[in-house]
Structure formats: structure tokens, C-alpha cells
């Protein structure tokens, strides 16, 4: 019997617009392809609104709210007529969902639009588990995998168990417990550039925890954190791999076919 991922019937009727995020679009397209493959395999119709750019979070977090609003208005226009919007990033999903209403608070036109959009935004793992009811995607990934809770996903969107549930459904994958998995990795967007050496010291602590749990792969739902940790790991010549959750879920033979950077 062919193993059909659970929740597939529910997914047949779903249509989503993928907000791939600027980071994935420009630096890690393989993550976007993996997310698309996972969704399509479930029978979800995936659409990529081509006008999309960025959610505006870098400017928002740095206090440049006029610039953030300029980019956010563009985002809203691009996705205004979409149904569910799925992003392979807790951070960017949180920006749209939680911070757009704050950014446009008091604006007669845009606050309403931001609030309307807010209800339709999902982070990738949240969409799979909460909306589609999927746990097992029939994926295979041999190895010891540690999961890092990214801050906006965990504390902004309240997503803690969903990625772990999905990882437990992956064949040959041993989910190891990462000590203080909920502690920030030190990325923090512009923080990582402005206060680089503090950011690196925080990353080093995460790496120490990773090494203690014996993981060979680190996964998370945010390429910001993973880019930062990957950059630090490779600078320190560590062999731990970093992959986005979507890449693990997309792989069916233990090889992550989409990965190009390593």
C-alpha cells in the first residue's frame, strides 16, 4: 500500500499563496522549492504572487517605521486578494501577523487592510499541523536532528510543538533534545551586524549546546537564524549541517535534493 500523508484530503481543497521571504528568494531558493514540494505533494494548490519582495521587518526593528511601512504597503497590495498566505519563516509571518497592525495603528486605510491580512498568514509548520492536520509527510532523513525554536515563531506566534510533531513523523530521524532550545541564537536582524561580536558569542553558546546533544543536523523554521548559525559553524569549521524544516520534510530518500549551500 502506498503511504499517503495524513491530512491529504483536507489539503486537496486548499489554495495557498507562498510568501517565500526575501532571504529565501535571494539566498536560499532551495528552501522555497522544498516548501512548495511539500505543499504540492499534499495536494495544496500553491501560488507565488510574483510582485512580492520583503515584509519590511529589518526597517521596522531598526526603528525606521516610515521605510518599513513603505515596503509593508507593497506587501499588502501584493497579497490583498490572496487566500491563506504561507511563509517558511516564523519571523516574517510574525511581522505581518503581529506587527503590521501595530505599524499601521491609527491609519484609516492601512490598519484595516493589515488586520484583514493578519488572520490569513501562517508560518509553514503551523499551516501543515494546525490548518491541514498533517503529522506524517512520508519523509525520510537519517540522522540525529536538533530543533531550535526561533524567537518570533515561539514567542510571537506561539508555535512550539508543530515543528516537533512533523519531525517525529520523519523516518530514520532521531530528534534529539537541544538544551535551552528556546534561547535566542543571537541573530536579531540588524543586531547581528551592529553588535556582531555579541551576536557571535550568543551563537557560540548555541553551538556548544548543539555539540553537547550530539546532533549532526540542526533544523529550524527560520533562515535568519540558520544563516547566522551556519555562518558561524562554517567559520569555526564545524561539520554540523543546518537545514530548514521544509528541506527535511521534502526529502524522501534522505538526500535533501534542493540544498545548494552547505
Amino acid at each position: 500500500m502506498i503511504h499517503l500523508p495524513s491530512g491529504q484530503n483536507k489539503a486537496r481543497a486548499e489554495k495557498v499563496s507562498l510568501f517565500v521571504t526575501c532571504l529565501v528568494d535571494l539566498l536560499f531558493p532551495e528552501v522555497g522549492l522544498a516548501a512548495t514540494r511539500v505543499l504540492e505533494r499534499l495536494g495544496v494548490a500553491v501560488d507565488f504572487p510574483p510582485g512580492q519582495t520583503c515584509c519590511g521587518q529589518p526597517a521596522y526593528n531598526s526603528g525606521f517605521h516610515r521605510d518599513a511601512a513603505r515596503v509593508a504597503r507593497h506587501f499588502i497590495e501584493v497579497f490583498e486578494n490572496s487566500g491563506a498566505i504561507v511563509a517558511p519563516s516564523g519571523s516574517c509571518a510574525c511581522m505581518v501577523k503581529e506587527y503590521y497592525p501595530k505599524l499601521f495603528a491609527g491609519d484609516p486605510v492601512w490598519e484595516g487592510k493589515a488586520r484583514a491580512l493578519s488572520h490569513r498568514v501562517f508560518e509553514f509548520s503551523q499551516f501543515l499541523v494546525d490548518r491541514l492536520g498533517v503529522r506524517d509527510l512520508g519523509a525520510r532523513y537519517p540522522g540525529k536532528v536538533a530543533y531550535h525554536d526561533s524567537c518570533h515563531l515561539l514567542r510571537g506566534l506561539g508555535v512550539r510543538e508543530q515543528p516537533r510533531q512533523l519531525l517525529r513523523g520523519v523516518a530514520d530521524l532521531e530528534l534529539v533534545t537541544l538544551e535551552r532550545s528556546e534561547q535566542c541564537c543571537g541573530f536579531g536582524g540588524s543586531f547581528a551586524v551592529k553588535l556582531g561580536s555579541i551576536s557571535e558569542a550568543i551563537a557560540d553558546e548555541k553551538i556548544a549546546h548543539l555539540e553537547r546533544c550530539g546532533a549532526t543536523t540542526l533544523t529550524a523554521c527560520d533562515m535568519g537564524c540558520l544563516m547566522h548559525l551556519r555562518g558561524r559553524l562554517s567559520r569555526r569549521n564545524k561539520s554540523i549541517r543546518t537545514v530548514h524544516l521544509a528541506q527535511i520534510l521534502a526529502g524522501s530518500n534522505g538526500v535533501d535534493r534542493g540544498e545548494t549551500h552547505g
Partner: protein
Amino acid sequence: MANRIPDLLLRSERAISDSQLQRAIDFATSRLRDHRAKIMPRMKGWEEMREQARELRLHTLAHLDEYLEALERKVMQRGGHVFWARDAGEATQYIIELASRRRVRDLVKTKSMVTEEIGLNKSLEQNGIHPVETDLGEYIVQLAGETPSHLIAPAFHKSKEQVAEIFSRHFGTSIPAEVKTIMGVARKELRGKFLAAPMGITGANFAVAETGTLVLVTNEGNGRLTSFLPPILVSILGMEKVVPRLADLELLLNLLVPSATGQRLTTYVSLLSPPRGPHETRGPQEFHLIILDNGRSSILGGPFADILTCLRCGACLNVCPVYQKIGGHSYGATYTGPMGAVLSPLLSELKNHDSLPHASTLCGACAEVCPVKIPFPDLLIGLRQSQVRQGKAPFGQSLVFSLWSWLWSHSRRYAFSARLARAFWPLLGNGRKFPVVSGWASGRDLPPPAPRTFRDLWHERNGRSRG
């Protein structure tokens, strides 16, 4: 000591490379975190309590004038003196004048952040008055000539060997690096000071408007001795620390103590109503309450007023990834960690602390543990925003964000910028020479732009029908 970003970074890097300090911070913060985590399952209705406390604190701030006046009346009815200090200078001047009038040379003090904030000890010393700190940690910090590095554990950055060295130097005799011995020496020395001091100075964790009661929360009992033995008592209250009713203390203490130390209650919670009444035979004969503003009233009613609800428990410090790496002193301010990154730039300290709101990854761990639910990430972002509005952001940064938002609020311009970045990447030394990311590339490898963007791959795969 300047406090621009490069200064902050320099101090931080020094702290990060100090392995003794790193071990000490790790030990102290993880202990405090563990203690808090251990008691949390026993704190039934914690979330409701936090919500109630937040409302209570915001209500108090909204009626601060009324509650402070009520407090003043109560204290004066009992024969106490009340002085409203607009700033640090007024507060210290009042104490110095009082001490001179009463010919006070030596006095005892409890650990108090508000006295650190106004630089009291230094001002006293400059006027020939010698304060002795009576909290063990604060005493160590005082003997070392330093400032506290944590709201509730002021000397955690010192190892017992370092403390033994400081004590040996101070007492002119060799003191072994044993905690018990060190404590014994301090106790013996401080007992004498308590008994001899003509004046005691305390801060106040709370002051109750309804009854004029002062509340001191300690684990060492030094608060009790300082406020009870000397004939003159001076207490300094940050004006936001007033509480409407005596009954409100239950809620606030139930939140403060578990958040701070993970205890159900501290060893000593002292409720004081000085001065000594006509039929009382003990306690201070003279009492002065100083209500300190020092910039607080300018925060009231503004977008950052939430920070005035802070109970000074220190829980946000213990979970902050930045604090855990750089420790307290790197902040270069009295108040450190997330609460300090918000409060320090807002208070009228002489220094400019505009770098501190940037010393955060905005991870939100602070807001999660805060007993009064202060929305730290929002406040930190708000402070960054107000810097931008006031034109304080670096010109280059403003330019980059203007250009960026112009490019990225339009899909063709966005695609153009992506092509541009890819084309110029090798010329930029693979990112290392690119000004915006050079802070990144010094310690982390930067991924190159993908040869083809996701949208290129998507169009290739799905055709250009909608593009």
C-alpha cells in the same frame, strides 16, 4: 565613560573574552533561572496574577499624584518628613545637608538601585560622610570600588577567591577563600557598624499610600537592622514604587519574589512605619522619606510609561541572551539588561544611553518572564523609532533604509537590486567589504546570492503565465 555603540561593543568584547566573568555570569543567571523555573509550577494562577498586577501598576501610574500625596500625608501625620526630589542632585543634597546638621560621619545603607542611580555614595564620600553597604554583595562591590552588576545579585561577577583578596586587602589580614569565613568576617564587621551608625539609609521596594507603610524585601535581614537601629532613618523611594493599598502587597510580593529568586517569600519582608511612635521604645526617632522623580515624570503618560511598572525583580536579565554574554557592567549604566536598555536612556542621567535599546535581539524572552508583562520588544523598537524620528540615527543608516525601501517597495526595482547584488558580489570581497554586512563577516561566513533566485526558478518551473 561614553556610551555609543562602539563603546558598548568594546566593553562587551572585553567581558566576552574574560573567562572568569563568563563562568560567573553563567553560574548566577542559570541558578536564578532554575530557581524561578522550579517554583513556577507551584504558582497557581500566575498568568491572571500578572495581568492583575499589570493593571494595578498602570492604574497606580495613572493616579500617581493622588497616591503619592496620600503617602506624604500618612508619613507626615506620623511625624516623618517628606522631601520631593526633582533630580539626583536635589536628593543627594538633602541627605548631605541632613547628615551635616546631625553631625553624621558614618552611616549604614541597604542595597538600593535608586541610590546607585543618583550616585549617592560618591556624593557622600566627597562630603566626608562614609556610607557602609550592609548587603553582603553590595558590601563586596563597595570594597572593590565597583558598581553592582545585577539588580538582585550585585557581586555575582566576583569569584570567592577575588572576594577573599578584596577582604584581605581591606582588613589587612589574610582571609581564606571560603564562603563561610568571608561571611563571618562581613557579619562581625557589619554588626559593629549597625550598632554605631547614627543614620541608616534604605531604598524601598514599595510604599503603601493607604497606610504610609514602607516595604523592604531582603534575604539578609540587613534592611531590618538598617531601618531599625540607627536613630535617624532616610528612605529613598522611586516615585513609581507607590502602591495604593496594603492589601495590594500580597499580589505584588507573590510576583516579585518568585520572579527574582525563585523563593516563595524572602527571608525578611519588613513593613515599616517610622518614626518611632510616642509609646514605642525602639526604632528611629527621626524619619525622612525622599520621593525621587529624576526623569520619571517625563516618562509618565508617554509611549514608554510601561517601564515604570517594573518591580526590579531581575528576571529579564537572567533570560536575556545579551545580558548573559556581556554581564551588567558592559551596559555602562545603573540599570542593565532589558529593563535597563529601556529605562536608562529615558531617565535624566547625565550620560546619553542611546546605544542601549540596540543591545537586544528582540527575542522576547524578557517579556515572557516579566511579572508585570512589560512589552519589552515593543518598547525597545519604540525607542529605536524615536531615535530615528529625532534624527539621531546614523546618516548612512537612514540613507540605506531610504534607498532600500524605495527599491523593495516595487517588484521590478527589487529584482534589479537582486541582479545588482549578484553582479557586484565578487567585487565586494564576497561580502566582506560590503559596509552593511562587514560587522557580520568578521566572525561568520556570509552566503553568496543564489545563482538564480526563487522567483527565477519558479517561473522556469511554472511558466511565465502570471509573471
